[in-house]
């Protein structure tokens, strides 16, 4: 059923200039054509002036589309497929570096679907420059959000984000994506409430659906003392205008019918703190949304780019940043922001800034999908487990950090055993569900369970690290505040308590009471 569309004459000519530079240019719509079918009857290394475009199956290519091909270099041909220099498929210069990204919308999906067009790249593959105003280390939620707000709120766009793997490969892609704001201290509430606000409007702010599922968040109490803490949190939240209240087992059963609320279990559920605005979010989408937004503002994102050293002048531990040495080359820059987790202390020690951080793995797991039955997020501090069901039907589980400090992310059997035991204690009916995958992420723990944010004794070296187990929840507001911090050269009030100097000046923050109950 292959249909041949009309061949194109005289339109596929290699650009002399491009060939000289070894960089063939291809109008990005070509990728669309390739996705539809492919190019045939051309030879490797050829510079075809005429290319026959072939579609597959029922899905013909409109001749009009074919006409948009400008020039191509065919690298090699193999049996039944055509290999094109995919990396050269980029926006042509005429489209401009700072062109806003194609807007995502239902109408766009419809239009592209009808015209069988594909979407442009979500972010560019920028050229590596030797100098930037700001270099951000770490392409996770924190780093990308910082980059995005530097551009969006402060007009600073000469920024590079470097990550040694792919964007979102660290904690941003390994967390269980739960967000809430029912913390205990006024500082904690103000901070996370701002984060929740940003998450709430994020889909439209970034024009990418991050699938924020405001499904409600239940923290179960299995003991008198836990219940007392829930009441305390509810009372504080009530006064702070946060929607959270203590509910009884009958109400819990209505919200989450799979929970065993009978009194004859080992850890009977005595009540719960119910926080309706809490929920889950698609963590990868948050990463991509910020990356796409930052890119649209002209910020350069470099994946597979490892930072080998940070260059300084002046004394060790108190000098001035001059640049970054990466696996792709040196960048000179006056400002470096360390937005890493797991390696925060390693990166900081490159400029002799010592962080009071130990790194612990946090494990998580997911089951095979089943039809959805758990509409809320359920957390049990006593049983050390939190669980939610994705829209795809998988149950996502997490627990507390492992007690041992290590960089090993291979996960343990014991974690899955304890997890399963605790989960079945809560939801005895799901013993036949199967665990599909387990993984671990790294958490940088500080002595007061609070992050370290802001400037350091090294001029131009900023940190946004030490996020323990709750970095994802705080991603947007951290980015916003760190951007303000870097742009204004002054630490904003909201993150002032988190400065590194607190460890030597005696101002440890306490959000342990709130943060330790976790997710």
């Amino acid at each position, binding site marked *: 059923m292959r249909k041949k569309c009309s061949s194109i004459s005289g339109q596929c000519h290699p650009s002399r200039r491009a060939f000289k530079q070894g960089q063939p240019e291809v109008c990005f719509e070509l*990728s669309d054509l390739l996705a539809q079918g492919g190019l045939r009857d051309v030879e490797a290394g050829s510079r075809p002036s005429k290319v026959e475009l072939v579609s597959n199956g029922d899905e013909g290519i409109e001749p009009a589309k074919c006409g948009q091909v400008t020039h191509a270099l065919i690298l090699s041909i193999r049996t039944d497929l055509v290999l094109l220099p995919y990396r050269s498929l980029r926006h042509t210069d005429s489209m401009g570096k700072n062109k806003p990204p194609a807007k995502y919308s239902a109408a766009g999906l419809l239009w592209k679907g009808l015209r069988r067009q594909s979407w442009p790249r979500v972010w560019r593959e920028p050229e590596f420059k030797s100098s930037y105003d700001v270099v951000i280390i770490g392409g996770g939620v924190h780093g990308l959000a910082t980059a995005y707000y530097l551009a969006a709120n402060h007009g600073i766009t000469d920024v590079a984000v470097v990550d040694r793997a792919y964007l979102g490969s660290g904690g941003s892609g390994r967390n269980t994506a739960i967000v809430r704001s029912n913390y205990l201290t006024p500082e904690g509430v103000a901070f996370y409430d701002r984060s929740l606000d940003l998450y709430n409007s994020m889909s439209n702010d970034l024009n990418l659906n991050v699938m924020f599922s405001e499904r409600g968040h239940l923290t179960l109490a299995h003991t008198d003392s836990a219940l007392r803490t829930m009441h305390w949190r509810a009372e504080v939240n009530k006064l702070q205008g946060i929607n959270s209240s203590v509910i009884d087992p009958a109400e819990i059963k209505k919200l989450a019918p799979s929970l065993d609320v009978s009194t004859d279990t080992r850890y009977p559920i005595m009540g719960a703190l119910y926080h309706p605005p809490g929920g889950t979010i698609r963590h990868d989408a948050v990463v991509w949304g910020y990356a796409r937004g930052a890119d649209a503002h002209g910020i350069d994102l470099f994946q597979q780019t490892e930072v080998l050293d940070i260059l300084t002048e002046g004394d060790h531990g108190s000098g001035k940043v001059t640049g970054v040495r990466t696996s792709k080359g040196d960048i000179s820059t006056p400002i470096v922001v360390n937005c890493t987790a797991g390696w925060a202390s390693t990166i900081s020690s490159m400029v002799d800034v010592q962080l009071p951080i130990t790194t612990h793995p946090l494990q998580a797991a997911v089951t095979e999908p089943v039809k959805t039955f758990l509409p809320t997020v359920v957390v049990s501090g006593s049983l050390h487990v939190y669980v939610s069901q994705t829209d795809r039907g998988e149950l996502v589980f997490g627990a507390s950090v492992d007690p041992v400090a290590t960089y090993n992310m291979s996960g343990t059997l014991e974690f899955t055993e304890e997890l399963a035991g605790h989960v079945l204690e809560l939801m005895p*009916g799901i013993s036949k569900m199967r665990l599909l995958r387990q993984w671990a992420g790294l958490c940088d723990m500080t002595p007061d369970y609070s992050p370290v944010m802001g400037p350091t004794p090294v001029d131009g070296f900023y940190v946004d690290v030490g996020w323990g187990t709750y970095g994802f929840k705080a991603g947007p507001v951290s980015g916003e505040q760190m951007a303000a911090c870097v742009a204004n050269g002054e630490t904003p009030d909201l993150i002032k308590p988190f400065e590194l100097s607190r460890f030597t000046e005696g101002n440890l923050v306490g959000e342990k009471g709130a943060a330790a109950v976790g997710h």
Partner: protein
Amino acid sequence: MSNRLPAGEGEVLDRTQALSFTWNGKKLVGFEGDTIASAIMANGHHVFGRSMKYHRPRGGLTFDFWDPNTTVQVDNEPNVRASHRKLKAGMQVSAQNVWPSLKYDIKAANGLVGRFLTAGFYYKTFMKPAALWPKYEHILAKFAPGGEVDLDTPHGRYDKRYAHPDVVVAGGGPAGLSAAIAAAEAGSSVMLVEHEHHVGGHLLWGSEADRARATDLVAAAAAAGVEILTNSTVTGRYEDNWIAISQRNHPGVVERLIKARAKTLVVAAGTIERPYVFKGNDLPGVMTSGAVRRLINLYGVKPGTQAVVLSANESGDAAIDDLRRAGVSIARVVDALTGERIVAANGSKTRVKEVILDDGAKIKCDLLVTAVGWTTPTSLLNMAGDRPVYDANAARFFPAGAPDNVLATGGMVGDGSIEDLLEHGRATGELAAGRAVVVAHRLQAATARATAVVSPEPNYPADERTPLDRWPHPELFRASTHGIVDYSEDVSSKDLYSAAAEGFDSVELLKRFTTATMGPSQGKLETVNTVAVLAQARGESIADVGTTVWRPPYAPISLGALAGRINEPKRVSVIQPWHEANDATPILAGQWVRPDHYGDAAAEVRNTRENVGIIDVTPLGKLDLQGPDVSKLLSLLYTNKWMQLPIGGVRYGIMCAEDGVVLDDGVTARLGEDHYLMTTTSSGAGTIWNWIEMWLQTERPDWQVHVMPVTTGLTSINIAGPKSRELLSRLTEIDLDPKAFPYMNVRQGTIAGVDDCVTWRIGFTGELSYEIHVPSGHGLATWERLLAEGKDLGVKPFGLEAQRIMRLEKGHFIVGQDTDGLSKAPVTGLDPLLKLDKDDWAGLPEVKWTLESGDHPIIVACQPDDGSIVPEEAAQILRAGTSEIVGRITSSRMSPTLDRSICLAQVAKEFAAAGTSLEVLLVDGHRITATVMEHHAHFDPEGERLRG
């Protein structure tokens, strides 16, 4: 219409045992030995379910454990792999992902609009209006794949087993069997784990000679003493060869988790046949060569009537022979080795109908068989740290290097005749056994034992195996058309192209964006095709694109098996039977269950204050500390001084975490020169033990301190009340005279005839009281003696609630209730205990800073002005007339002694002065006033009763 073939030689069916079951409500019959899927196929049904996104009808693809298309609901169990699970009589089997029925599915309409539902489409829409997103989300969630969980499913019988084999062999094909036999013959204890129901691997569906060979190998394995586990999967390889095995056929158990510490692991997982990507590749009737071979040879099922076979290897050729033998006419053999290709398949809704070749020919058929190559399931090797490398010549990935104690053999590492595979397996088994001997020796030598291991370590055998050949194989991943790459996730190669063009062009990003390889088979079938398509899209080689990391488990394992027997520990004191017999109302306190009260807590308080009461305080954490450096340890962990505590002395102390927050409190007694007994709070017992070990093991390893938790070794009873001295004197020779045994002292001696009891004079209740610690074997008897001897004194037991009331009357705070995760030590108001002049103690800098700043809340006693109101233990204290929080009520009770409500509260310092009026917001919204008291103690602030 029946597809059942006449009985064949190698089939695994027992045709004398007919089993009836239902399929979507329709009654069908299969045989003993059938899988659910083979029985359904035998009855002429080809469609097993519908796909996740487009709800396209799907038929069996591989007819083995990894088949993505034959996942069904069986009774109350979702996601049953019908191509693996054996049929049982009475099973109610139904298709998943269908609505309202398998035949007519309304959501199949999605297929018509597929072009709008590209991978990740949901990221691009449903954003406006924001208010509608929850509705959209609700609809999206309806498309969640998988079966239905019956929430009333009872927890079946699951179990666990620990094993310590020398060698575990994962995979019971020829190489695995050969390795197991060789290792066992070399003297190793060997566990052979086979995923399928029979060992033998591909020999089982091979020629008569192959089957005979399999029988011989199994006999040899049994003779060599190999423990063979069938229908079992090695699901994980963790640190130091900690091996998880899911055993699904242990009698009487739904599923059993075997945890084996193997000295060597041999991975012989074979290869998995790869599907081919082309338009129409998910039509029912399109299947792999292995699928038809299994159907015909093992299950006597005829997979179709007219077949086209795309063959690039011997498996395809063997399938052609099998098909001919089964009476299936071969419409066309497409010989991939000569460059022939298929382009697409067309079909009706339920079956493939024709295949289009690249020369334009259209061949009618109802079965399209593909044999295009193999995927190496390197998952277990990944878990050991191996990162596989692609070999373009053989068109598959190969292991690149695992630790010394993990060895691979068989199809995973190369190709060869059966003899070659057996030989490689044999060499691997010998190597595994040799290395296991060395590991065993090292373990023995490293373990402290009475007689030291002195024999020299055996030579560590080097890997001198002759590598298997790697046969050339054409790289066949995708035809010139687009088709499904991930069947369970409904992701096509076109989706992958679009995603790559959008910038999701590294394999990890692509996986996350499209969800390819994230389904129930975790990429066993899909990963290599995904990588190959991405390589095409990027114009790079497969080797450059690389592959994803496979994580545990190798195959999904039930939560039930992981949990085993649900067995949450419950701790009780030896006196608990007495409590229960005497109508105690229990209360849960962490792992402990203990008496809350015996009917009337207020009466218990009054009796204790007037006469004498006894309480079982066994859950109190107790640590026996011995060694010359105990006093240094105590000085480091407690905030106050310990170097001068005399023998026979008892001291109270507070412990802080390094952030200065109160971690625990309790009393510690010095029993001898180098011997102390420490008590902790009940809930803090485990934490403090860990805390002490952390300091001793990582910070002060040179200190000589031996720590032994004795919480349950000693039964602890507190005797409180004005008549407590009289009562105790009736049971002991210890001199209880206040001068000989003053307050805050400890004595050891005989109580109620039991030697070596520890008695200290302290008082949490504010009464004269003695706490006795009795070896637990005598705990209940001692309790009963106290009650019997004190009858005339009015002795009565009291529970936790009475104790809490009395400690509140006395103004003692409870760590974790009156303090919290934010309360630094100065919050307690016990500044004299915070010795800033000591060299060092945990939390000192933070506490010092806090005291210097003076900016911290503080615990005060307060009493509501209306003594009939008991504010909740959560009620917030506000700056009068505002909603600014300045504190909270942390403990509150009605005092039976004072006949009014009493409280402890944490308040900001400016509200801490005696006489300050506090505004308390009750949970119901009303505000009341309360007054700060001069002392923490509401009752007997001078402590006369205590010290008398």
